[in-house]
């Protein structure tokens, strides 16, 4: 294909050693993200987990996938799909993240959270029974639009 001429000038300036260098950067970051939670500080864990994931993803997309050598609209396309996912999150989260709303509730979530707050279940043990299967309370999410 005709891509050889086009990509050659972009790629050939760094040989295999460049990619190996990036690879070791990625491994180093991976170690950091593994060690992060050991300190037990939540904000630090979040940074080492997700901040580093973003850095790693950046390194891979730029240096391995060569997104910087593609025309700019490719970046825009990928960015658009990411933005639309944020949009989806923003639209759906206000409903999905609640355990009750207008004329509905989620009995299992309410019960699980109550039991968790009260320390009755730990979640670490076997999980056969900690999601209030009982309660028989199907009315909560029924379709009565009484008013």
């Amino acid at each position, binding site marked *: 294909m*005709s891509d050889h001429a086009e990509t050659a000038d972009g790629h050939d300036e760094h040989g295999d050693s460049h990619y190996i260098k990036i690879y070791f950067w990625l491994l180093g970051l991976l170690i950091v993200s593994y060690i992060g939670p050991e300190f037990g500080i939540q904000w630090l864990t979040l940074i080492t987990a997700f901040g580093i994931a973003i850095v790693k993803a950046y390194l891979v997309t730029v240096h391995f996938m060569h997104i910087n050598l593609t025309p700019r609209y490719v970046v825009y396309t990928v960015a658009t*799909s990411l933005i639309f996912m944020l*949009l989806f999150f923003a*639209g*759906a989260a206000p*409903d*999905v993240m*609640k355990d009750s709303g207008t004329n509905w509730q989620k009995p299992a979530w309410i019960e699980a959270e109550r039991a968790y707050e009260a320390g009755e279940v730990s979640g670490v043990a076997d999980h056969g029974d900690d*999601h209030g299967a009982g309660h028989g309370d*199907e009315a909560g999410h029924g379709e009565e639009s009484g008013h």
Partner: protein
Amino acid sequence: MAESIPVEEHHGDPAGDHGHHEMSFVSKYVFPLDHKIIAMQYLFTGMFMALIGGFFSYVFRMQLAFPGMEVPGWGVVSPADYNALVTNHGTIMIFWVAMPVLIAAFGNYLIPLMIGADDMVFPKINRLSYQVFLVSAIVILGAFFVEGGAFGGAWTAYPPLSTKAEYNLTGLGSTLWITAVFLEFVAFLLGGINFIVTCMNSRAPGMKMWDIPMVVWMIVIASILFMLSVGPLLAGGIMMIFDQNLGTAFFDPDRGGDPILWQHLFWFFGHPEVYVVLLPAVGIVADVMTTFSRKKLFGYKTVLYTAIGTGVLSFTVWAHHQFIAGIDPRMANVFTVTTLLISVPIAEMLFVYIATLYGGSITLTTPMLWALAFIFEFLIGGITGIFLGASGNDIYMHDTYFVLAHFHYTFYPIAIIGTYAGFTYWFPKMFGKMMNDTLGKLHFWLTIIPFNLIFLPLFVLGASGQHRRIYDFTNYPELAQPWQQDLRILASVSLCVMLGAQVLFFYNVITSWMSGKKAEKNPWKANSLEWTADSPPPHGNWPEGLPNCYRGPYEYSHPDREEDYWPQNEPA
């Protein structure tokens, strides 16, 4: 791989590359690589599915008009039958009729011809896309023959009705339904990538962005919208299959899930989907209308920008389908505003079309009639949408026949009227024969008048409180008053007339195809590149060499020229 592109384009023999040997019937028509044959496969599969979807609507409309009657061709409609019929009518008409015909058939046929290429960029992926689509069609129809029958939980498949076999009573049917939808999406992802890349990369030398015919632009924008919106539903489809068969509880509030999550996943796709099928129809109408009013499209870029604006906005409106699903009322406010906003670009588009007609020398051929009818009927659909977009009003209107009539006033113009406009317009190119114009006009009037008689009464019934999901209204005395039943009978009888009128269309197609007047290369004296190829175009489209492009597609009635059209491939 051919390295020397420019040389080959001007002196080479494109068909010679891959069309020089006689192909057997099987490799030409059953496993084709030619985009035109694949387009025909999509077209005829879509038409076949349209007949099935139309038949379904006939059966359940008869049940609504004459409850308990033995419907000729089906028998007595049981409640389970009724649910399966309405569900599959909706699913089939959108995913197996509107999408394959408007996007896949017209896209496959027109994109390479209109941008001056010899084929799609990935012919094998194109073929695979159709094959996956065919399998999906077989799966959704096959669901009617399994134990328990086809899925009957409405085309939106809200849980828990769709996930719990003890509610829907169609255990296997529900899984087959979601599987078929899933496969269909995969087919259109494959096809969509092909359309987008073909249009981006394979345009004729000299064809700039603003020289692309509107219908190609619209199909590409629609494919992009589809690709960027379908993902959550594909993920949701997997989750639903797991809920149905593995016993997970993604959508089951009794076991830690959330049914509203499915609604979000579904409508995040479901609303852009409206524009996915709308835009190709809008593009078809633009091309038909400019040709038959001999005028330049008024505001080419305006149409394009409004289409892109509509596309972006369409991602922000989805929850207006869920106003009474118990979503956060503050979110309902946001979605009301965005929903009302989206009518602005669409209205702008319609104004552009009317401005295009203004002062043109209009010829009322059959395709032009369809194009004008599209604008008129879609306007009704759009305006009634504004009623429903207001969340306060929607609380009353939701799930009534008002919604149903609004929906059909948008989708019918798109999927049926738009398709007929395109089909009658490009028929000479596709089959090399002219269609009978008298029969075509008769068919037009016999379709348009009954269409309005079906759905205008449903607005009235919906406003009077008639709920969508009721199988037999005689059980609800306040909904079974004589005037209401009369309107139902009017709608059902009109439906029968409209379905019967389609016989005219098929008769017209077959007789024109067999013994119609032979079509010349450019029977409508249109500008775009497909009219410079033979009718029908041979394999490779332009065996004598691919065309170049010198100007936009809408240069009609140019003051400096004797002819009132100026083909894109003619050097200045």
